[in-house]
């Protein structure tokens, strides 16, 4: 009896994945997004709604994340970004922050294993954000994960931890200032500076353009990925909460009202269909800027 039941479940699973593959075949007739970003909102609300233990919502949210990643990579999306932990989230109670950090540590170890999604789809994992704000074990695990998957080149997963967009912009500005300073010092020391440091050698116009937009964009945490095509935020909230503000100028915001642990294939499908509907317009906007 058990064996028959298992068999039925297996056949059902196969049918479902076959159906998903067919749908992906049909959808690939139209434009496929290059980069999708997820804001994983609603874990705590899910815990309350289903009356689970504390932290269970986040665990279920992680498996929802794995299934969304599977859909993305099977469909052919090359870059996926997820908003795991914001700098503002450090304001939460220390126990909650600690449990989230422990969960993150556990999951980083898990994705480095052989059969995980990372190795199956050749995914390079990048941790974007101000990693210095993280505790030592988490930071080391993150760096280890980045190193271990550095050779994979088929897809990229950017996990934003200790990340806010304003912090990213500021960090990029700071890095470009330091780079410019090093450049000028180098010129000065090699004698070709003409006294640049004393500011006498530059016109006001030139001084305004020492640091260009391209320098700043080069130093962003998210410089390794192109601008996102779709940002999906669950739980029906309509704000970006300091996520990818710089990069989302021509990006479609899809805001389903499901909570993150409840997200499934239906929402993914709807996001892609909506994206394909307005792709032409957003592409035109991107080319103009």
């Amino acid at each position, binding site marked *: 009896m058990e064996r028959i039941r298992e068999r039925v479940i297996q056949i059902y699973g196969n049918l479902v994945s076959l159906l998903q593959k067919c749908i992906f075949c049909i959808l690939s007739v139209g434009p496929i997004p290059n980069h999708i970003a997820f804001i994983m909102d609603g874990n705590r609300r899910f815990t309350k709604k289903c009356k689970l233990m504390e932290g269970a919502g986040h665990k279920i949210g992680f498996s929802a994340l794995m299934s969304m990643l599977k859909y993305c990579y099977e469909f052919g999306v090359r870059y996926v970004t997820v908003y795991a932990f914001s700098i503002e989230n450090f304001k939460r109670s220390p126990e909650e922050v600690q449990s989230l950090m422990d969960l993150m540590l556990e999951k980083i170890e898990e994705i480095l294993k052989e059969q995980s999604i990372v190795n199956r789809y050749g995914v390079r994992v990048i941790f974007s954000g101000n990693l210095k704000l993280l505790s030592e074990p988490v930071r080391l695990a993150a760096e280890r994960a980045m190193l271990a998957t550095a050779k994979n080149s088929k897809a990229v997963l950017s996990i934003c931890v200790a990340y806010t967009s304003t912090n990213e912009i500021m960090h990029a500005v700071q890095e470009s200032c330091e780079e410019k300073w090093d450049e000028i010092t180098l010129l000065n020391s090699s004698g070709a500076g003409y006294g640049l440091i004393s500011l006498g050698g530059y016109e006001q116009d030139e001084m305004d353009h020492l640091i260009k937009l391209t320098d700043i964009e080069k130093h962003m945490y998210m410089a390794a990925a192109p601008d996102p095509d779709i940002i999906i935020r669950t739980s029906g909230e309509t704000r970006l909460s300091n996520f990818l503000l710089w990069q989302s*100028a021509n990006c479609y915001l899809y805001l389903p009202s499901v909570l993150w642990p409840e997200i499934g294939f239906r929402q993914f499908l709807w996001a892609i269909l909506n994206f394909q509907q307005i792709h032409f317009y957003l592409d035109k906007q991107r080319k103009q800027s």
Partner: protein
Amino acid sequence: MFFISSFLHVSVHQVTVFKLLPLYFPSSFPISKIYFNLFFFFFSFSFFNFSKPLFSRLCLNRSMDFAKLKRMLYYWIHQIVNILLRLTWHLLHVTIHLFYFAINIANALESLLISKGLLRRYKSLHISKLQYLAIVIESEDCRTSNVIELLQWLADLGVKHVCLYDKEGILKKSKDFILEKFDGATLFQENDVLLDQPLMTLEFASFSDGKEAVAKAANVLFMKYLKSGSTSSYQGEQIFTESQMGEALKTVGGNGPEPDLLLVYGPARCHLGFPAWRIRYTEIQHMGPLKSMKYGSLIKAIYKFTMVQQNYGK
């Protein structure tokens, strides 16, 4: 056999046209898509009828061996599947167009009811919660008459501070015209505190107030850094803070207050490059194209905003 194969041959070339169609009609009424599909279908069919002799030479080769036949079969099966996939995709998108059309009709009815004051929920708005409103308008859609009508509605609702943004800067150029035509507003000054004022304050922004303003602010900060003559350039130190960045942005003229609500009047829910530093916790609502703006949907959007609770990360 000959009939089917030559028909398919023409359909294959037609497939590329199918693919190009959505590019020409991105947001048009779906019926036109169906008509165009049918038109090309019959056109290619009649073209095929006039070019029968050409295709007969390709297909009626009696000395085809088995391997070649198999290859041809796979080729035609592949083509058929391709065509079916494309047709399904088009059908899917036409269905979605129809769905959104129905949704738009429902929304129009609802906003009609709201503007007549028939829905009790929207009767009293806590407009004081809305300190600063920003409106993003699609540049090609930007008709000043519509903009002025929208500003009139906002003034009637009691909104005190509005920022108008469009990517190309068209609104900025017609700033004086708008201020002249709409006499209930003054220009927003940099050091205006968001107090209750008798007139509405208007701010105009464009794409250059976003990324380029950050680049200019970076230069300002760099100059400060050079002038302070700091010799220690240890890479890990935090030289700038976010508040310093905010100050620098103010000096280059790219930093107004942060909007509470951002209304997007355009074909897509996308903030089109509104200055990134200001929309950290801004609620973004999509209102549809500007030419089909409705008073009722404006009230609904503001009502939805007043019902929202933010944790700010906690």
